[in-house]
C-alpha cells in the first residue's frame, strides 16, 4: 500500500504520523512497505523470501514509532491484563470455572482467584472445592478483572476485590466489544452510578470492556459495616456476594433501567460508540423524548433510535 517514498515522506513529518494513510483501509495481502527499517506488528506478516511487510487483516494502519500494525475494522474482544470484564459461567470444572467473555477462548476463573466467604484470610479447603457450584454455577453472571494472559490467548480472571463478584438486581445486554466500530470502548471509567430520572433512584451502569454490559439498581453498602473497619466489612458483604436473590426493586427503578438498556441498544444499532459520555447524554435525551408523549414511551428502536443518535451527534 505504502510505497517507500510515501513512507519516507511520512518519516519527514513525524508529527503527522496519523496522516492520510491511516484513513485508508488495507485488505489482507496488501503490501504495506518493503522498507526494512519498519518493524511488523499485529495484523501484519512478512511473506517467505521477501522483506515486505504485508497486511493480514482488513483494517486501518497504525504506526507507533517504527512499529507498523493493522487494526481490524471488526474483531472479537481481545483480552488485556487489567480489563474489567463481565462474563458468564458456561462450564464448571473441578477447581475452576470456564467463563464466556466474548473472546476467542473461554476465560478461566480459578477457585483460588475468588473471595471466599468468611473473610479474605480464610484458607481454601476441599469443602469449598466440593461446593464449587454454590459460588458460581452455569449461567451466572459475574464481573471480574483480567489477571493474566495465557499463550493460547485465553485469559485468567480474578474477583479478589469487593467491587467484583456475582451480578444481581439488574439486566444484561451484550454489544460488540472493543475492536472497532460501534460498541464499548476502553475508557477511564467502565463503571459509574447515575441518578435516574422520574424518581428512579440510583442505577449502576457497568460497561465490560468485552462488550457485555450490566445495568442494575445501585445498592448502598451497609454504612454500619463500613464503620466497623475493613475486615468486618469483608465478612458482612460476603454474606451477599454469592447470593442470586434480588433485592426489592421499585417499579420506577425498573423502568429507568429498561430505558437505559434501550438507549444502549439504540446507540449500537445506529453505530455510536458506547461509553460513559454517550450513555449519560443518550439517557438524558431519552428522558426528554419520553416527556413528549403522555405514556412515556421507553422503546427506542427504529426511527426513535435514529432520532436519538442524531440528537447526540448534533451536540
Amino acid at each position, binding site marked *: 500500500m505504502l510505497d517507500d517514498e510515501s513512507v519516507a515522506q511520512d518519516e519527514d513529518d513525524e508529527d503527522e504520523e496519523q496522516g492520510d494513510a491511516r484513513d485508508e483501509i488495507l485488505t489482507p495481502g496488501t503490501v504495506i512497505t518493503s522498507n526494512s527499517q519498519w518493524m511488523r506488528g499485529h495484523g501484519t506478516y512478512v511473506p517467505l523470501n521477501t522483506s515486505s511487510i504485508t497486511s493480514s487483516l482488513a483494517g486501518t494502519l497504525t504506526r507507533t514509532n517504527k512499529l507498523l500494525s493493522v487494526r481490524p475494522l471488526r474483531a472479537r474482544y481481545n483480552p488485556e491484563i487489567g480489563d474489567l470484564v463481565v462474563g458468564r459461567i458456561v*462450564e*464448571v470444572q473441578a477447581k475452576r470455572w470456564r467463563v464466556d467473555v466474548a473472546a476467542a477462548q473461554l476465560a478461566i476463573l480459578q477457585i483460588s482467584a475468588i473471595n471466599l466467604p468468611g473473610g479474605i484470610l480464610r484458607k481454601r479447603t476441599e469443602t469449598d472445592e466440593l461446593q464449587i457450584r454454590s459460588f458460581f*454455577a*452455569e449461567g451466572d453472571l459475574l464481573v471480574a478483572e483480567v489477571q493474566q494472559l495465557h499463550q493460547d490467548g485465553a485469559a485468567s480472571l480474578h474477583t479478589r476485590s469487593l467491587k467484583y463478584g456475582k451480578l444481581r438486581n439488574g439486566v444484561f445486554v451484550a454489544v460488540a466489544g472493543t475492536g472497532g466500530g460501534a460498541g464499548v470502548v476502553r475508557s477511564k471509567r467502565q463503571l459509574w452510578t447515575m441518578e435516574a430520572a422520574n424518581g428512579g433512584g440510583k442505577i449502576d451502569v457497568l460497561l465490560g470492556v468485552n462488550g457485555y454490559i450490566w445495568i442494575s439498581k445501585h445498592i448502598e453498602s451497609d454504612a454500619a459495616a463500613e464503620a466497623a473497619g475493613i475486615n468486618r466489612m469483608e465478612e458482612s458483604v460476603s454474606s451477599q456476594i454469592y447470593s442470586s436473590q434480588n433485592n426489592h426493586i421499585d417499579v420506577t427503578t425498573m423502568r429507568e433501567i429498561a430505558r437505559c438498556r434501550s438507549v444502549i441498544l439504540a446507540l449500537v444499532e445506529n453505530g455510536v460508540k458506547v461509553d460513559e459520555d454517550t450513555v449519560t447524554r443518550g439517557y438524558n435525551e431519552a428522558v426528554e423524548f419520553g416527556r413528549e408523549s403522555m405514556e412515556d414511551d421507553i422503546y427506542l428502536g427504529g426511527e426513535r433510535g435514529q432520532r436519538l443518535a442524531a440528537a447526540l451527534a448534533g451536540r
Partner: protein
Amino acid sequence: MADRRRVNGPGSSTLPPVYDDGELDAALRRQRAPDAIRPLYLKTGVTPSASGSAYLEIEPREGEHGSGMKLTCTVHGPRSLPRSAPFSPYMVLSTHVKFAPFATKQRRGYLRDSSEKDLSTHLETALRGALIADRWPKSGVDVVVTIIEGESTRQDAVERRVEEWDVMNVLGGCITVASAAIADAGIDCVDTVSGGVAALVASKDGKDASIVLDPVALEHESILAACCVAYLPNRDEVTNLWFKGQLPSPASCNHQSLVSRAVQASRGTHGLISASLSEAIGSTQN
C-alpha cells in the same frame, strides 16, 4: 418426507391391494353419545426390562375391524447422563414416538418421519410440564412410545384422507400411555397428565356442526376442527394444547367450548389411569 438416506425403489411400480369396503353406510356412523369416549384398556408394567412401561388399547367398535388403536410405552431411566453431556440441574427428558411399519395402511419406514417427530415434540411438551424435574438432577430419561396398530388401517381412511385428524387421537393416546408408564417408573410428577381429544364435526348436510368427544374421523362426514389437550386434572392446568381446523365464521368463541370438551375427554381417561395404577399396586402388594 421421503427416506433420503437409502435408495428407494420406484415409487409407483406396485400397488397395494384394494379391498372394496363399500360405502360409508349407516352402520359405520358414530353410535356413541357425543360425550362418550371409547372404552380403553390400560395396563402398566408390561415390559419387565424397562424402568416403567404401559400398554394402552382403545377398543374398536363391536364387530368392527380397525378403528381401535394399540400403543405401548417404555420408560428408561432416570439414569446418569453420558460424561460428555453438559451439567443439568434437571432431569433431561427425551421422547420418541414411532409408528410400527405395519401400523397404518400405507407402510411406514423405519426412520422417523416428520409427523412422528412432530408428535414427539408435542409429547415432550405435554410431559415436561407434569414432571418435577429438579428432583433428578444430572440424569436423563427416555420415553419411547410405539404405535403398534393405528386407526387408519382401513382403505376408507386413505381414500378419505382422514389421517391428518387421526394424528390428534394418536397424540392423545401417546400422552395417556406415557403418563401411566412414567408413574410406573416412579418418577415424580405434579399430577397425572392425560390426553383428550374433541372435534367439531359437520352433519351430513353440512349445515350444523356439533362437538363430539374422542372423534373417529371415519365415523363422520367431515371434521371441521379438532383439539387435543394434555391436562392435569387436580391442578386444572393444560400442559399441551394443539388445535387446528376451521371454525365456522362468526362464533369465534367456539374454541373455548372445543377446548373444554377436550378437557372433559381427558378427565375421562384420567380416571382410567388412576384405576389402572392402583390395580397394579394392589396386585404387587398381594
